[in-house]
């Protein structure tokens, strides 16, 4: 499709996005981005709040359709897949939602068992072993009979993480896995992400704001802003990056070329009631 395709290593990328555009109404969320998610590596996606990181995961999952461009997953173009092909591809994906999205009418145990029961015909005894294993990995084996409403924010996120890895997917996408974790469980989750990647060779996509945490485990980092990729590289390259926009982000400075604000009219004019509501 594109001239430079042959020059890239085809077998190496698990997900490849080419010149993808996506709009919400009039607003362009993505303005022609291209990125590669290498197989078996941890790729971090960073960027200011509201730039479309969650949207990107939904696009890869085929829940949203880009207005132009391609999203190749294992060589298949996701936006062009029919319903059953899409469901087949989704069995290979695990997604940890930003909100956790646990099923509120099921216990933690049943939540983790859900993808196994729906997508496999394993006997219940095997499912039980898998579920307990996954819950043990996130430290929630003892909480298996609790309902989601009885969990704290960080606990529900870890329960959702156990559910996302229940089917042993080939690729797992974490939307803010570290948010709301105390230093201990944060360490557990960081090591879990790392060890899932190492032991199972899981391709991992981590959306996060935690520059420190992610620098310690990521193989490659993409930074988005304003619908574009503004920086990419290994954690060392990113820390050394002197581009103002990237270094502002990596060091967490509020003032700089990356806008902290949602697009808005001039503040002073706004206060003066320039566009007073009718």
């Amino acid at each position, binding site marked *: 499709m594109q001239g430079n395709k042959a020059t890239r290593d085809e077998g190496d990328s698990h997900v490849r996005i080419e010149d993808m555009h996506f709009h919400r109404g009039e607003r362009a969320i993505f303005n022609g981005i291209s990125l590669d998610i290498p197989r078996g590596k941890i790729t971090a996606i960073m960027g200011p709040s509201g730039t479309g990181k969650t949207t990107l995961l*939904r696009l890869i*999952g085929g*829940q949203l359709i880009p207005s132009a461009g391609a999203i190749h997953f294992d060589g298949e173009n996701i936006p062009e897949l029919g319903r059953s092909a899409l*469901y*087949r591809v*989704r*069995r290979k*994906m695990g*997604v940890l*939602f930003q*909100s956790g*999205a*646990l*099923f*509120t009418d099921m216990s933690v145990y049943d939540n983790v068992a*859900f*993808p196994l029961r*729906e*997508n496999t015909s394993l006997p219940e005894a095997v499912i039980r072993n898998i579920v307990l294993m996954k819950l043990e990995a996130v430290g929630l084996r003892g909480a298996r009979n609790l309902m989601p409403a009885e969990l704290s924010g960080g606990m529900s996120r870890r329960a959702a993480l156990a*559910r996302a890895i229940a*089917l042993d997917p080939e690729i797992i996408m974490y939307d803010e896995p570290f948010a709301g974790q105390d230093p201990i469980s944060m360490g557990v989750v960081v090591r879990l992400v790392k060890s899932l990647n190492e032991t199972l060779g899981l391709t991992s996509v981590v959306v996060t704001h935690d520059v420190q945490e992610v620098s310690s485990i990521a193989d490659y980092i993409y930074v988005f802003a304003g619908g574009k990729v503004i920086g990419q590289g290994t954690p060392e390259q990113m820390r050394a990056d002197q581009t103002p926009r990237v270094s502002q982000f990596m060091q967490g400075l509020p003032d700089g070329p990356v806008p902290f604000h949602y697009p808005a009219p001039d503040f002073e004019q706004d206060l003066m009631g320039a566009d007073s509501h009718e």
Partner: protein
Amino acid sequence: MNDAIARLGAGTLTFLATLGRSGHLLIRSLLLIPGWRDLARISLQIFSVGVKSLVIIVVAGFFIGMVLGLQGYTNLVRFGAEAALGPFVALSLVRELGPVVSALLFAGRAGSSLTAEIGLMKATEQLAGMELMAVDPLRRIVTPRFWAGFISMPLLAAIFTAVGIIGAYLVGVSWLGVDGGSFWSGMQDSVDFQKDILNGVVKSLVFGFVVTWIAVFRGYDTLPTSEGISRSTTQTVVHSSLAVLGLDFILTALMFGELN
């Protein structure tokens, strides 16, 4: 003037788009052929949609039956026709009040909770999460609820009617002294299986279908916010009540009227 035309046009377009989306939902969820697991889910939903509506159906049916017995008696006795109480009560319940009132109660009790439940699942990304776990939320969530509503409605209407007749018997026969034998035999003579009972069942099947469709669609189509959910819930009750009453007129005209 221009404004009014523009608004009418916009309103019509919104209406048509909604109709299209709901039709799409209906077709997609009904085309799925239920397997064994789906049957288990349907029976679970019959419990939460149907069985949990029983109390309100039974209580309401009983009171309406008692009122019918009382009103029927006071009016019929003036013509010395209190023996016709049985047919009067049975025909009113079987043809009209059973299907219609139980459908209205069903819309309020089960319809609103279906909408709220599905809407909340949408707002908390449970439906989206399911989709990414390669599970079709239509099949898993919508289809079983649909069938459950469709199956429960005629049963609820039948229970409503039966309880109503008992209520009328209590008031008319036990309290007001109408002859019990003529109460039952008059009922047996005048209620026709095909004309009255089957038509009543057809009505409640149609109502069950429409109420559940509206409820499920409103939940699935809701704006994923708390305000959106509360609006959809209200819409379910209002729209399905109006649909039931409107359809009842059409069905009655087709079944019992001189129009055909």
